[in-house]
């Protein structure tokens, strides 16, 4: 039995899979441990990937050479383009996936990676021995590895609630991980409790779709992946229906049986993904709430009831569902439930996702207090890359807030006191217009190639795309519209815009009336089909002013990010810090002045005091 690997990844969910793939691609032997080999990349909640912010994360992971994008493209049931009319910054793809196919594809992909060994087993103990970690399974088998990545999702001391019934469990009836949590806690890792939940699943044939509104997929022209050719599939529809006063009345009558409201749950729940009982209590003025019925896969009759997440007793869930149009005869497959679990108090994390003071121990995914497959995968790939860099003895890979949503996510995690599972949102990004989904590869592919997560061939594709973009930009720059020319006349016919003086195409594209497709048509350059390069080119030109402003802001940010704070800095030696700032800074131990400025409770006054003091102590 092979006992020595470079890396052990504990957990094969969305974070664990990306982490294992990344570090293995960097050339390190990787042991991927899972509680159940059948549940690799399992989606315990919504069978959906993407949306605003989340979709950007998927594109970024893909640009770095991660798996979630390609795997989603290959297993999608329908794909929609959201926010198409609200501007380039917030355009987002969202996919419904076949959750079973998603798992199979991910499992098979990882199985084919020569440096990855997947092993079923429960880790019960981690121990630091010299500069190695000993990973012990509950069967007594031990592995010796220099690096461990913990990606245990909601399994650590998982506790499921359905009404007043509660029991130790992982998600959807899986085995929880208790021994490991106790072992880590005994060694000084601090945990806090979070809560999340999921709705019931129902049987397709028990539903009356004639009473619902069909939500078909869009004819999108590309998927998430930069590297796989887009293969559209015959879209499978989702269905929309609504709750009503009757539904709400049943819920109100039974609140005393809801663990969130009778005090049985101590963990903190999410605001963006509330249970139906939460919505009814918080928004009593609403007379209805949306319910989306979503397919879970092609080869199953199970359907997901989005919007009715609940931890009321199974019978009550059944009762209130029956008041919803189309669900009158509903047959429940599994009830909704709430789950509480341990998360690592994030002040223990460095931006590399390593635990501070625990060299070689990284954490990724829901264990760090996030929610969502995309957020987990993002941390997975970063933890994987940083595990590789740690093994090589190189500086960690830290994405800045102006480079990627991944940077925003991790920076928020390590500088903010999150009281609920963290979800990415576009409104968390200061550089929203720069972090568009269509330019993810332009922002990140160089890193992906540098770390060997992208193949030569993939990088070649990227370089060709970049060249095409540059060619198009220079064509627009050097081609002119002349007043009275055939082209100008045609443009006027198409857009109503009069060209009164010699204007470069680039200049003309800045006019709101003129779209790039029209210019191509006018100049017989190509068909109207919008390619990804065109989207980049058009956004670069149309939003140049805004992008330049963000670039200036980024420069200012970079200055504060370049001011490093020594890791052993003694905040208690700075008498001028406010009490709150001192406590917070000492707790989060920011790595840079930029991070310090984003910790809540640290005021500009504290920052100037800190700056003065750092300069002083450097002089000494």
């Amino acid at each position: 039995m092979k006992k020595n690997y470079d890396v052990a990844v504990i957990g094969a969910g969305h974070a664990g899979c990306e982490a294992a793939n990344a570090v293995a691609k960097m050339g390190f032997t990787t042991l991927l441990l899972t509680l159940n080999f059948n549940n690799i990349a399992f989606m315990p909640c919504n069978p959906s990937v993407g949306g605003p912010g989340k979709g950007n994360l998927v594109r970024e992971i893909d640009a770095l050479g991660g798996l979630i994008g390609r795997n989603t493209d290959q297993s999608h049931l329908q794909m929609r383009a959201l926010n198409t009319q609200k501007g380039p910054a917030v355009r987002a793809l969202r996919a419904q996936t076949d959750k079973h196919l998603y798992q199979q594809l991910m499992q098979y992909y990882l199985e084919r990676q020569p440096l990855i060994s997947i092993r079923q087993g429960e880790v019960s103990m981690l121990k630091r021995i010299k500069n190695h970690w000993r990973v012990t399974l509950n069967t007594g088998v031990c592995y010796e590895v220099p690096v461990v990545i913990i990606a245990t999702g909601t399994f650590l001391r998982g506790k499921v609630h359905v009404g007043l019934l509660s029991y130790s469990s992982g998600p959807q009836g899986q085995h929880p991980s208790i021994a490991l949590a106790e072992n880590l806690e005994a060694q000084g890792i601090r945990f806090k409790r979070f809560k999340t939940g999921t709705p019931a699943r129902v049987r397709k044939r028990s539903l009356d779709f004639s009473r619902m509104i069909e939500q078909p997929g869009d004819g999108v022209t590309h998927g998430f992946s930069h590297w796989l050719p887009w293969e559209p599939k015959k879209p499978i529809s989702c269905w929309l229906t609504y709750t009503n006063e009757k539904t709400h009345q049943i819920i109100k009558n039974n609140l005393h049986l809801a663990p969130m409201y009778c005090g049985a749950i101590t963990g903190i729940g999410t605001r963006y993904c509330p249970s139906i009982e939460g919505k009814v209590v918080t928004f009593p003025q609403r007379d209805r709430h949306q319910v989306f019925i979503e397919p879970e896969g092609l080869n199953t009759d199970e359907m997901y009831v989005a919007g009715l997440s609940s931890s009321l007793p199974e019978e009550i869930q059944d009762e209130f569902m029956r008041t919803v149009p189309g669900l009158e005869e509903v047959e429940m497959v599994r009830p909704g439930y709430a789950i509480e679990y341990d998360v690592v108090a994030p002040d223990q994390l460095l931006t590399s996702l390593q635990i501070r003071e625990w060299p070689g121990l990284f954490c990724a995914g829901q264990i760090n207090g996030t929610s969502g497959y995309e957020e987990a995968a993002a941390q997975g790939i970063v933890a994987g890359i940083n595990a590789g860099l740690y093994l090589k003895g190189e500086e960690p890979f830290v994405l800045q807030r102006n480079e990627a949503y991944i940077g925003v996510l991790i920076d928020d995690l390590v500088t903010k006191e999150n009281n609920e599972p963290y979800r990415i949102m576009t409104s968390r990004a200061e550089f929203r217009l720069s972090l568009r989904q269509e330019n993810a590869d332009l922002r990140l592919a160089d890193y992906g190639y540098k770390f060997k997560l992208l193949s030569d061939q993939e990088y070649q594709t990227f370089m060709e795309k970049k060249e095409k973009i540059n060619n198009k930009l220079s064509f627009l720059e050097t081609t002119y519209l002349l007043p009275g020319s055939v082209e100008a006349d045609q443009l006027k016919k198409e857009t109503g815009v009069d060209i009164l003086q010699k204007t470069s195409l680039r200049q003309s594209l800045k006019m709101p009336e003129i779209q790039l497709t029209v210019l191509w048509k006018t100049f017989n350059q190509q068909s109207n089909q919008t390619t990804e390069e065109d989207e980049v080119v058009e956004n670069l030109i149309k939003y140049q002013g805004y992008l330049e402003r963000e670039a200036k802001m980024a420069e200012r940010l970079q200055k504060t990010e370049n001011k490093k704070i020594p890791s052993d800095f003694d905040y208690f030696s700075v008498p001028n810090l406010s009490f709150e700032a001192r406590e917070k800074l000492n707790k989060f131990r920011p790595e840079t002045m930029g991070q310090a400025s984003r910790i809540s409770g640290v005021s500009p006054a504290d920052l100037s005091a800190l700056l003065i003091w750092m300069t002083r102590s450097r002089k000494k």
Partner: protein
Amino acid sequence: MKDTHTIAAISTPQGEGGIGIIRISGDEAIRIGSKILSHPSGKKITFWPERQVRLGLAVSPDGTIIDEVIYFFFKKNRSYTGEDVLEIQGHGGYQNLKKILTYTIKAGAQLAEPGEFTKRAYLNGRLDLTQAEAVIDLIRSRTDLAHQVALTQLRGELSTVIKEQETRLLELLVPIEAALDFPEDEIPDLEREQALNVIQTVQQELENLLAQADKGIILREAASVVLAGRPNVGKSSLLNRLLGEERAIVTPIPGTTRDFVAETIDLDGVPVRLIDTAGIREIDNVVEKAGVERAWQIIREADLILAVLDSATEMSREDQEMINSIKQKKAVIILNKTDLPVKLFSEDLRAKFPGYTILSVSAITGVGIKALKDVIREELMGICGTDEHPVLVTKLRHKEALEEAVERLHSVAEGLQLQCSEDLLAGDIRSALEALGRITGRSVSEEIINEIFSQFCIGK
């Protein structure tokens, strides 16, 4: 590790006052206090109750009584500076206070630098930046009006006005952001016309603040008023007349006022820095040439120029060139020496230089000086500083932040009318909020997210 020393200073103005205050701030305040103060009975003070008026004696190290005093003690975190503070009120008499201060310093305190108490208050988070700056202004304010403005700012009125605008913008922004992040939830569409109204209201409010900003900055920094003119037109005499006393050296030989004389006067509440330049004329002398160049520099930076002509001589080419060269600046033409036979008449000038205020004065007799002072004040301040037009913005930093906010809002207004997409509108509103936050210290990013969740039912 600690090296913040305890500081002390006389906190009341120098001169003969009824009482005088010595303030001591820092960890050593009590230890020092017990060395320089004693109980009225002469016993050592061992009990220092917080925030209570106590009677005591100020004593020298050899036990000599200097003064009968009252003192207060403020504990750390509950004092102005955020440190332990001991305040001693003595019976006026500057010499007495100085003696007490001397012993305070002998006992271990260090003499405070100007503004150091406030600086500590700021560093300890007792004041926000706007307030701290206002205190410094209050201490430094040169005139009553400037003093009033500083007081208004200390009370946080600027912050209050700006915070109102922040709240308006936030209310507009939250539904837009919610819809961007949760396209599949039921969030009402943006009402562009209504939004435009809000934006324009806020824009107007900020522009009102900005309209007074230059004047505010003048009140804080003092306006620079430059006397320009060829040599021997009587600039120095005019300066002295305005100052109300002889100060600059005045001679009838051209070129004697080679360096610049600058004095600050209080013009009915407006601090004005009067600057006399070297006579401007073309010369070969290198030393003088440098002086002339500097004069031009000062003229370029002036808030107002007094272009002085000699009414007893004909208008010269030099005079003509001087006035031409300051066309871009705010200026008043002054005909000096009306006490001598007049050869240059204001009517002629009026025809020649339309649009300029032209005043005849005599620096020697004082005729026309009152009118000149009124003109200077009005040119600088217009109608500001009244109740309807309060001056709140006195910092360049604030002015720049306001200008940026207005610019961003302008872009929002334009975008709303041109049907720009919501991501850009939201981005501009955020930038405006970020700029305003540089004045109020409010950071809205978390607030936006909290508001989204409290206002809208999110989550499919």
